[in-house]
């Protein structure tokens, strides 16, 4: 049994302890906003926010790793798309196919928590491990700056 909080709701799960958080979220809890991209931690599409401080690749974190943790997925970032990143993402039309964007947004959310006024260099450092196959990086960068009020 593993217990953690997802988007403010406490969940107790009877799944194999080594099951990656990604599949717990998607297949057990039906939170499909968190995406599968590579399964080996190299694309970032599955990123979620843990303990309101770091972005974690849910394909590498196991269910057991999450014991007692507070997880926020894209579905829990806001109830009405009011998070500054969501607003900037929509306004600047960041998504193309949109598949990687939940991971991009959750990584950007972690960045802004730790560094509310990031520079281009800070954005590069935090976002360089997140693949966008459509190539939306330029607008992601602009949207992070806009959300940060830069």
């Amino acid at each position, binding site marked *: 049994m593993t217990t953690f909080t997802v988007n403010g709701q406490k969940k107790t799960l009877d799944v*194999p302890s080594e*099951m*990656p958080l990604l*599949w717990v979220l*998607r*297949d*057990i809890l*039906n939170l*499909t*906003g*968190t*995406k*599968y*991209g*590579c*399964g*080996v931690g*190299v*694309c970032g*599409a599955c990123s979620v926010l843990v303990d309101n401080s770091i972005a974690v690749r849910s394909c590498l974190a196991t269910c057991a790793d999450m014991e007692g943790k507070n997880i926020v*997925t*894209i*579905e829990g*970032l*806001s109830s009405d*798309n009011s998070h500054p*990143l*969501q607003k900037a*993402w*929509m*306004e*600047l*039309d*960041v*998504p*193309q*196919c*949109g*598949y*990687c*964007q*939940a991971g991009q*947004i959750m990584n950007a959310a972690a960045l802004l928590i730790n560094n509310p006024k990031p520079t281009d260099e800070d*954005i*590069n450092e935090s*976002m*360089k*491990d*997140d*693949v*966008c*196959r*459509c*190539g*939306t*990086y*330029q*607008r*992601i*960068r602009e949207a992070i700056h806009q959300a940060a009020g830069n």
Partner: protein
Amino acid sequence: MNTMKNKSITEIQTPTRRSFLIGIATTGVGIVLSSLTAKSEVLNMIPEQTAQSFEPTLWVKIDPDGTTTITVARSEMGQGVRTSLSMIVAEEMDADWSKVKIRQSRPDFTGIGAQFTGGSSSVTGSYNNLRKAGATVRAMLISAAAKKWGITEANCIASKGVISEKNGSRKITYGELTDDASKITVPTNPSLKNVADYKLIGTPQPHVDNPDIVSGKAKYGLDVRVPGMKYAVMVRMIAFGASIKSFDATETLKIPGVLKAENVSGVGLVVLADNTYSALAGRDALKIEWNMGNNTTLSSASISDRLRAGIGSVADVPSNSTQKIEAHYELPYLAHATMEPMNCVADVRDTSAEIWCPSQGGDSTRSGVANAIGLPANSIIVNTTLIGGGFGRRLSMEYASFAARISKAFKVPVLFMFSRQDDMRGDYYRPASYHVCKGGLDANGKVTGWVHKSVNGGAQNPPYQLPSPNSSATTVNFPIPTGAWRSVEHTSAVFVNECFIDELAFAAGKDPFEFRRDMLPAGRFRTVLEKAAELAEWKKPLPKGWGRGIACTNAYSAVAHVVEVSVSEQGILKVERVVAVVDCGIAINPMGVEAQMQGAAVDAMSTALKSEITIENGQVKQSTFRDYEWLRMNEMPKIEVHIMASTQSPSGMGEAGFPSMSPALLNAIFNATGKRIRTLPVQRTSLSAVENSEITTHGEINVFPNPFHSSFKIDGKLSNSQSGEISISIQNLLGSTLLETQGLLGNEGNFLQEINFSPASAGVYFLTVKNGKSAIMRKIVKE
């Protein structure tokens, strides 16, 4: 998930309208206005039709509250068609854009138009029909208002979903007119707006799906959940042409959640489970004995040899040419590597089936599934989901048939998916190609002859005025599936043409921009080229180590790119500036056009510089984004997109931004370094001006072996070193750090360490060993 039936809505079909529907169905237009109050009329007027059966023919539906639903036939994979196509309809009908909703068409929605989504044809192929559809609705609403008010139609003005009386104060919304409008005879030839009067087309509009995407609500194929659904993966072949001799599923079936591990006819060995994790773990636990097949000696090297041998005879340029130039180019296989791997949900019953599939054509998906499971197509509903990247991959829909066969065999709804590795090794690849080019110049530097012959690539005459250009292509067959990849044959044909024309310009001693311009007739294409040169300040001197390159294409739309790069002494490349100019006719949604130009440029830079699919022992070597590297945030230059103002009919944008970007980049690298890179990706070649680019600043280092395959040793000495540790890092061509580790430093500043760098793709890298202010950088080559 249910099929999207909204039973609260009924439609009125007058006999006129019905004949209109049928008559115009071949051009892909159908129109129905809805009303909540007239269900009986529907049944009376067309007794053989029920309201429900007519609902799927909707292009446009207006509800009494003004909500306007527009049905879009083409698949949305990031190119923005759900937005741009509905903008065309909304423009002509003067709809209130804020009240427009989009509905995805299905193969059983007759009269809505083909769902094939490829060849950058969505907007170009639908523009006229969608305008007519919108104009028809608008004309009917205006007629209805005029009739209601007892005035002429000319005295009614439509704007943003409201009709108002000219010289009067009466106003009525479209929603309030649905009953009246549905009694109006459908006009056969409604007048279209003047392009100059467009209010919505030409304005930047964010994608209609953005709110769902940023909240996690958007449903891609992998997100579909059907009651009772199970999860399935298949065993991919270990090499092209391999087969399974035997397998043992004992350990697989012990894994919690695994339900079955069986052969499924027409698919292969399938693991079925309660969730994705169990399915993947179950597959990993299979013990398989392989029959390796006949292709185990196939490799990128043997493919290259056979491509070169396959070129055959190549024509010559005229013998009286003052200069004859010849160059050979080689391009690798490319995977599509869409972010969302191939997948499909299938629920196959005895006499019917429902499919949810991210594909570039619901109608082809349906016929493929029908063949696979032996049911008539009209008993199969295919829902096209949002698509996590297409780029041509999803024009091949074998994964839909696999899902359907699995659902049929196991009598359960299934979500069938490829893992990332399955996807990368089970693609329909952009083919590897080899090209021979010959060019002749006269004493004045004018082109006297042009020959381009390719093996497995595109070869088409460039758009310049050339004397008897001779382009031809031949093929050599390999057991590697190939398919359409964003801009298809232009990925190689335009690349080679635009690099080689640059070689001719250089040989002629001409400016590469002027050389091109002088061979183009006045018109749209030359204007685009000139605009790119102007915006990029083509003649402005650049700092030392910088270079500027230009290229253009008229594939899909008229496009020109100017790229500026800098190359350090060690050979580290930085793309400093990209200017992209496009004339795509009228830009329906400039925000989308700009996005396509930016995205295609990222594809072009990624594939020109870093990515390739290689073959070893008859199998694709790459498995994920670590060894098939796409451009990353820290490598992303700003791309300045300029869209030419135009009132002409729109031309395609999904692929137009790709073909000229990579040659402009390679031409810029030549301008900076004097090196003509003719084999992609660039990463395989050192850009350093110093041949043995050992930039030893503080000490000495030995790297062995170098070149290496997966790991190497370093042995050296750092001068002026301080504490007992060294930091070791490896950078790629673009200076991005791919590996960082620590090592021990001996008393005398000596170090000895083995470094594993197996996951990276082949190419030139830069190793840095550092301690305090002492550092050594060394070029290393991974094979």
